[in-house]
């Protein structure tokens, strides 16, 4: 290969890489997991900080006018931040109008997140995510 051809080849290779990186970075910035921003979820967990084993998650759901959302059917799925771990599935009970509570079992210590899937009285499905970092492996 001549020097000139070799140079052109290197330049096009570098260009290809730059284009690929820029394109992928652009699309890569996109993912976001905060769905349903008009619904507000406030939560607290007992014990705090939580440990491996049973914990109680109490939360409220409010709409954009800060009104409590009553009568929702709420399913929770607890996952570890590390992939490959079995999720923990449970449902929440409405203990007072607009207030919900669920018992969840943290199978081991570590960073967890809980996916909260609520079916509102009008049939709308709302998804929220709760981050519970640093679940202790021992009490």
């Amino acid at each position, binding site marked *: 290969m001549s020097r000139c051809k070799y140079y052109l080849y290197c330049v096009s290779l570098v260009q290809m890489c730059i284009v690929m990186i820029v394109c992928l970075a652009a699309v890569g910035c996109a993912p976001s997991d905060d769905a349903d921003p008009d619904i507000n979820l406030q939560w607290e967990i007992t014990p705090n900080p939580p440990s491996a084993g049973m914990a109680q998650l109490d939360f409220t759901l409010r709409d954009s006018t800060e009104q409590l959302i009553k009568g929702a059917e709420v399913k929770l799925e607890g996952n570890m931040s590390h992939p490959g*771990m079995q999720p923990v599935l449970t449902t929440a009970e409405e203990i007072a109008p607009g207030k919900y509570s669920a018992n969840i079992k943290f199978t081991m210590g570590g960073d967890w997140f809980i996916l909260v899937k609520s079916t509102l009285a009008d049939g709308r499905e709302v998804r929220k995510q709760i981050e519970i970092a640093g679940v202790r492996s021992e009490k």
Partner: protein
Amino acid sequence: MSSQNSFPGTDLLQLPIIGKFLRWQHSRMAMQSVMLVIAVAMILHGLLGPQLAPRNLSTLFTWVHYRGLLVLLLLVVGNVFCMACPFMLPRELARRFSAPVRSWPRWLRNKWLSIGLFVLVLFAYEYFDLWGSPWWTAWIIISYFAAALLVDTFFKKASFCKYVCPIGQFNFISSTVSPFEVQVANPDTCLDCTTKDCIKGIRHPDNHDEIVQRGCELALFQPRKTGNMDCTFCLDCVHACPHDNVAISTKVPGSELWEKTRRSGIGRFTNRPDISVLALVFTFGALLNAFGMVSPVYAFQRWLAGILNTTSELPVLSTLFFLMLVVEPVILLGSAAYATSKWTKTGEKLLPVIMRYSYALVPFGFGLWVAHYSFHFLTGLWTFIPVIQSMLTSWGIPILGDPLWRLSGMPPGLVYPLEIGFLGLGLLGSLLAIYRISFREYKARPWQAFIPWAILCLILCGAAVWLLNQPMEMRGTFLGG
């Protein structure tokens, strides 16, 4: 061409279906293509899919399935991942347009760069919590493709595999304890061979510049090749040998660790401080990587943070790495070498003794890597099914139905005996290697040489069992408690 196979063990190339496939000229490219499709799916899902590690193919496949399968295949077959490595595919295509002209710099023809990268990967894994980030995991895969392409576009032979790739070094050192090896079937045939195509390759009879079949790009000349170190299982030598004299046959796992022969493309293990350090980083890295997953590491890091008077993770993690990859090996190996030198009354310097025995620790280190990675793999075996279901659904092709998020794998209680079994196998392998080295090098006082290193192995194994019994705690930071 008829095979003169006189090798007594099993030769994979002689097996009915597998053998036929492996002998097929394009078998490697076929495997690489499958892996490339999987890698592209992982990259796309990592960049565009949900940024939840358990629900993303890039994190799930990379940190659970790939690592687990890798070590299990190394345990039962050999360096199969390098054989099917997708990172090599773009460079193969690039080389069709332009052959590299430069040789890899002489001063870099060793393992120091790749050892540095290996430590860097271990460090980045902990520091950036790579297991929890699909986006970063996808970028690591992309960077790997780019690095392999760039290095091998400019430099001849398999420079990236031999001198740069940290995964390759992990595979090379692990495969020293694998049961299969690419080796000469009948050494007598090589004595009469005039072409040596297994190393030189085959050129077109009319156009000498055109290579029809590559010889070994890792500089491993079959008749003088010993063991699996540096062998990518690319099978170029199998395809090149005009006498059909290269086999993939069984060997005694780990036997190459105590052999003192001069190895083609490598030299003597005892003259290679870089490979010796690689063996040590591999072994102590296994302990470090497992330590990073259990509860006591956070208490230890908080204690270190108190001493260093910092809340920043960087100095704390750096200190932890320094303690476990430098201070701990220096103290333990130095003590064992000192005892060996004293008790055998040879008065040897400590460094040659350490280098000699460092290779014997590899089976234990490998046992711990297998125990650790197989835990994640086996307990999360089926978790890829709902992730693929969900990925296809989100891409508008819900052919596999709703995701079955309940699927997982074996219960941890069932995996635990397996983990202990892998560790026990590793310990046995290390003790055997120590025994063989001691009886070869210290004929007058072999047991005096054996005992300090056996004790060292038992201490390491005790530490590993303790680690496996600790509650797991996979957290992104040591702070906040």
